[in-house]
């Protein structure tokens, strides 16, 4: 240490060793705080961003399904990077075992009729987080496995034409001949070799009632998402009326069209 660097100030107590210890402590404290708090925060944001990317990927898959079904294209494949989890294909028979299906009750002109639609699904399950994002029945739905609710990320294309009171429902069944899952970079190949079927086309003339029932899988319960979609204003202003647990009703239908597509996932 040199002499007084500010005139009149004593520097007898200034020690290089203590100075070093102080600076070293600050550096070590800084590193500790970053590893203790910063790193988990970074990891959390990484999980969040993975989930967001997968949400986007699932919308891409839904779009491919739309091209496959609505544009009558027989084959389609998508390559996507799957980060922070894996993607699974669930055959419609498997989801039906889990009581996961749609029921549509309507009057077929001569009497009441109920049709059951099995769904199947493409499902992404996060390995670090809690998110489960599914493509089911042409919609993208998301939920957290530790929480109750669920939300619809992308709607299916159900619609109601209010000029002639026509309700159009599309059901997309996903089939797979074996269990499949993918992570890393996955190439998802799908085909629609069965022609789409018009399951029902009933011109009523007068207003009739159509009831839709959603039966959710116990573990992957997306009923809140479907409830908000059906009772919300997406299909028709005012939406369907909830008449019971997962039962929704709409009374002003003059013509009902139900179309069903069967998509096979060939490979993941």
């Amino acid at each position, binding site marked *: 240490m040199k002499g007084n660097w500010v005139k009149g100030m004593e520097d007898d107590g200034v020690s290089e060793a203590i100075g070093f210890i102080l600076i070293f402590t600050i550096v070590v404290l800084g590193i500790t705080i970053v590893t203790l708090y910063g790193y988990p925060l970074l990891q959390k944001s990484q999980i969040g961003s993975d989930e967001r990317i997968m949400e*986007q990927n699932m919308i*891409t898959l839904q779009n491919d399904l739309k091209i496959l079904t609505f544009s009558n294209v027989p084959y389609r494949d998508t390559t996507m990077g799957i980060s922070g989890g894996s993607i699974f294909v669930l055959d419609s028979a498997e989801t039906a075992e889990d009581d996961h299906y749609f029921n549509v009750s309507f009057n077929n002109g001569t009497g009441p009729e109920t049709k059951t639609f099995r769904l199947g699904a493409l499902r992404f399950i996060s390995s670090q987080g809690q998110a489960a994002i599914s493509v089911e029945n042409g919609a993208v739905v998301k939920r957290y496995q530790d929480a109750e609710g669920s939300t619809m990320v992308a709607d299916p*294309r159900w*619609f109601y034409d209010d*000029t*002639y009171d026509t309700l*159009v429902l599309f059901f997309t069944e996903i089939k797979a001949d074996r269990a499949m899952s993918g992570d890393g970079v996955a190439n998802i190949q799908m085909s629609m070799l069965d022609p789409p079927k018009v399951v029902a*086309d009933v011109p009523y003339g007068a207003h009739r009632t159509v009831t839709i029932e959603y039966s959710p899988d116990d573990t992957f319960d997306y009923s809140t998402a479907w409830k908000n979609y059906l009772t919300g204003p997406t299909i028709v202003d005012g939406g369907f009326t909830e008449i019971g647990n997962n039962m929704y009703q709409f009374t002003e239908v003059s013509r009902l069209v139900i*179309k069903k597509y069967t998509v096979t996932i060939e490979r993941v």
Partner: protein
Amino acid sequence: MERLDDEGQWIVLMGVVVATGMFILAIIINQAPMVGQSTSEAVLEFPKNEIQDIRYHLAPLAQLDNSSESNKTIDRAKKDMRALSMARNNAVMYFETNSTTNMADLFYRYNRLTIRYNNGVTEYYEEHLVSVRLP
């Protein structure tokens, strides 16, 4: 430390500037995957050709007169067009022709044609007059 050397302070300043810049860039990159999909989809999905096809087939029908023979043809076409639109385009399609309007000028009589097309994304409504040459 004879005197404080403050020549290198710009290095510290640059550090702050670069750090802030990288932070802002990171936020922008984080937002990036959210855009793009829906905008391109909207352009691709507009059913221009489908609507043109329908108009092409309906114009001759609308020129028919009001005889029972033509009404039969039109009724048949209504059923066919309705079923075809649903099967091929997943669309609800209706049309009406009205040949009883008394709109006419020296050479032409005008029949009214209304088309309604809805595929859940695009709703299309058209009302137009088809001219028929008077004998």
